[in-house]
């Protein structure tokens, strides 16, 4: 299991914007002069990152919405850690 403290609150880094792009049929993360196309799971996780709810709350919510997905909690934690390493999000 990941070592992340589930009480931390993830928030998009300043200058990063998450939005749905109809022309590309996916969520993207926009930042200065750049754009990251997100796959479905990354899009679903970042859609929960609102700077209010903790990692624990996000995991609980997504687990309830996708009860058939095995290991979803671990997947979310791994993604959030990668997103932090790439400086897309910060933890508060």
């Amino acid at each position, binding site marked *: 299991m990941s070592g992340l403290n589930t009480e931390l609150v993830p928030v998009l880094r300043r200058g990063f914007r998450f939005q749905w792009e109809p*022309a590309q049929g996916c969520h993207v993360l*926009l930042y200065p002069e750049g754009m990251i196309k997100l796959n479905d799971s990354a899009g679903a996780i970042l859609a929960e990152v609102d700077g209010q709810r903790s990692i624990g709350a996000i995991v609980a919510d997504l687990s309830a919405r996708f009860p058939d997905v095995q290991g979803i909690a671990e997947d979310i934690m791994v993604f959030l850690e990668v997103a932090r390493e790439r*400086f897309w999000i910060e933890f508060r």
Partner: protein
Amino acid sequence: MNDSGSSFAKPGHIPGPPLWLLAELTYRCPLQCPYCSNPLDFAKQSEELTTAQWIEVFRQARELGAAQLGFSGGEPLVRQDLTELIRAARELGYYTNLITSGIGLSEERIAEFAEAGLDHIQISFQAADEEVNNLLAGSSKAFAQKLAMARAVKKHGYPMVLNFVTHRHNIDNIERIIELCIELEADFVELATCQFYGWAELNRAGLLPTKAQLERAERITNEWRAKLAAQGHPCKLIFVTPDYYEERPKACMNGWGSLFLDITPDGTALPCHSAKMLPVQFPKVTEHSLKHIWYDSFGFNRYRGDDWMPEPCRSCDEKDRDFGGCRCQAFMLTGDADNADPVCGKSQHHGLILDARRQAEEAPKGLDELTHRNVHASQLICKS
């Protein structure tokens, strides 16, 4: 607005949407950088789209799928309607980037742009020390103004990119450049070795660094990257090497008309900001819809796919990777835009690149020999 007309779309080649819109609002600029990418004859092109015309361009491009919008120029700050353009673009859902020299910026305008929804400001510097910066910029006050504005940009909560065009007269100072960017709390730093288009091509002998200069700069940049990573520092250093020291060409614009759409001040639509130099007819947004321009116009289809390629590109197994390189560079250096980019070692014109490297070693030009980009020089050059 004309949506019909003949289509030059290539059978079997369906381009993706234009994701990046560059709005070159004006060619007016208070600075005179000798490596400016604007056309040499910019002084002849004083026509500019109106506010309403620009907003209509933004609307149509957004509908096609553009998500990133760069306000550029010239110096975009000379447009008095910039706040209005930012607000309209942001409401359409763009990520809005202001690409500026910082000259003409003030704290009031920075705050006003933030209120209008501007997402990001990029400030370009000419050098990390005042004297060289101001000499290159052709302005005695530029450096102090840039420093003040970079601090104000961060103070107002924007992410900031600092851009340094590097060349033989400032690249040896790369350590100081990086230190300055960290001090100013840049989120991204572009260390962009000069690319040779527009005024930079004219001044190439005075700008191209030597291989040794370049290797040293890249090594120092890598040392700083490791240092920043060890500190968990978010600042990202982007090092752009000049293709003159490569043996294979760059995949210019990720392919002709594949994701980048540039609109010049008078509304000409281009697949890159240099393409106007090519003997290719490009459409204007005042005459055609962007949908027609992107998918069906002659200009945007001219170099899509690979059926236009002569040898050595035609039979090359790397043609899907680099698309034969840059059409503008092929045109400038060989006189024929269909040719392989001479940067490629397989090009019969590669000797031109080797000559330029040799000149950088043996007979470079001094800082005082550069032709500055200004109206007077533009008129002189384009009269002859």
